[in-house]
């Protein structure tokens, strides 16, 4: 799909989709959205970028191997559960802190960390699959 239109639009489209995926991830706790759907959106951004420019630019762009990102996500999600050992509550209990940042109360929590972990797991594994499929087509 190396048409001029697609190649010109793809970088903007991909970056917008990544931005949107982060927005969806963050609003996910109380409204529709979350790590899983956010990860899917980000992975489709990578797929679009890959269709337009080929697989190796995508691999360069994300720096790490997608499966390593998946591993990082799994690690984050586990750590989110382990954090509840410190206040002595059972595994995976949601813990909240409300720091003031620039006069705005920010609700940070372990479910958020868990969700970011899910985001990375989904993003990593789907991107890995998509890139492998696109690579196979070429040879």
């Amino acid at each position, binding site marked *: 799909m190396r048409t001029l239109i697609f190649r010109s639009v793809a970088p903007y489209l991909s970056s917008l989709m990544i931005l949107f995926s982060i927005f969806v991830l963050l609003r996910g706790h109380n409204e529709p959205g979350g790590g899983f759907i956010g990860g899917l959106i980000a992975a489709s951004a990578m797929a679009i970028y890959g269709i337009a420019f080929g697989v190796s630019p995508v691999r360069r762009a994300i720096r790490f191997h997608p*499966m*390593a990102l998946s591993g990082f996500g799994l*690690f984050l999600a586990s750590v989110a*559960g382990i954090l509840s*050992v410190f206040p*002595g509550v*059972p595994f*995976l209990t949601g813990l909240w802190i*409300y720091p003031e940042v620039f006069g705005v109360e920010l609700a940070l929590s372990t479910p958020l960390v868990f969700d970011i972990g899910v985001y990375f797991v989904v993003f990593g594994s789907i991107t890995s699959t998509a890139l492998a499929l696109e690579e196979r087509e070429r040879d």
Partner: protein
Amino acid sequence: MALDASYDVDISQAMVVELPPLADWLVVAPLVVGFVFGALCLMTRKDTGRQPFVAITGLLAMLAADIGLFWHVYTNGTVVMTMGRWLPPFGITFAADMLGALLALVTGILGFAGGVYALQDISRTGRRYGFYPFLLLMLSGVTAAFLTGDIFNLYVWFEVLLIASFGLLVLGSEREQLDGATKYAFLNLIATTLFLLAVAYIYGVFGTLNMADISRKAASVRDSGPLFTITAMLLFAFAMKAAAFPLNFWLPASYHTPRIVVSGLFAGLLTKVGVYALLRIFLTLFGAERDILAGTIAVIAALTMVLGAMGALAQNDIRRLLGYLVISGIGSMLAGLALGSATGLSGAVLYAVHSMIVMTALYFLVGIMVERMKVFTLREAGGLYSSAPWLAALALMLFLSVSGLPPFSGLWPKALLVKASLDVGAWWLAFAILLSGLLTTIAVARVFAFSFWRERDTAQKGAGEVQPAPAATSGAMAGSLTALLLLTVAVGVYPEPVVRVTDRIAAELKAPSRYVEAVFPPGSEPLTTEQTEP
């Protein structure tokens, strides 16, 4: 904690008010450790030089957590933790009784032994394909399946270990492996789907997925609900997972294809998860249905044992032969389940522990044998006795152990099972157990005679090949094999402590109310669905 501070709500109806002691974390520790180190291995996948150290550290930490958990359960009784601070029927419960803790402990031992063995058996390419992350995630899945107290969560752990096992199975992407993996994946998915359907049924009938909750409600639902249908579906699903007789064909079709350490761990762990699930379902949850199905299970058990051993007799490939021995062992465990008496259950659990250790050790042994012989087929095997007499000694001990001959760990569970069968007058079941022992002896004696006693040269004349120089066996492989062997010798020579543990497990299984009371302590009755409805 914000939960208490910012909102003034009475949470005692839905959440744990009294915080659990730190020691209770041991019930989730093995699988959390497995996940964390699995994730670390996944991140360092390309660093094949350093990755084994991360993985071995993780496996060691997992084993330590398993030992801690076992000790905690042994001294303090069933340990329960419900995730996310919810009260039992709402949150997902992990409940480790003696059965779960013992099997988790054996899993930890086998996982560590497998990780060490794999240092030599799995090449750098295998590590790049992700052997260690898959291994750690599979072990987490298996351990969690033994420890969870929620039936849907059990399904999830089955999926986790299944997906990790697919990865291990196709490590190397050889044609034969893909063929084996397809059969394995397809047939296992049928069983898993059936399990999921049964879980849906359970939720429809009981309105809960917590095993302890199901167990205490079963008596009141029995008249109106289709419990027999549910248990029959679960029996089918788990019998397939455990490779019981009519549903065992996927096992010999796939277990000989992956790397030998993977085969060994599969043989030791995966089918036993099916057996564990059967014990849990039929003893803790649906005791009355087990009594009805006992005859059927007994027939399945006898056929599985005898036909498994006969299948082993007919094989030429050593790995396929071992696959049939795994199946034969499953029959013995099912016999204990069918008998249902304290002696029978104790025998079944002891047999499960014995079989986990010995089957894994046997595959490890075959790995070392094949490294020297370069062939998997009995027809071409030979000459090992002259080149490695120490290996012959190890092999003989393992072969005696798997046949159930003294002084090794196979003897005691078989003795218990035969005694339990004769106690209820099921002479034919006792006969099947003894017959399968005899057939197993003949099958492994064939392996010993062909690959150790026969001269390599006479075997080679027919094949007309040049004899390869025997490779030196690495310390990692021989070490982990010897460690497992020492365990089976220890259990065989001094079975008292282990039998005391399995007797206690049998007593716990016979009294499911103790499991229920551990999850729902008397006096602190939580909100139930009936109470919420006006």
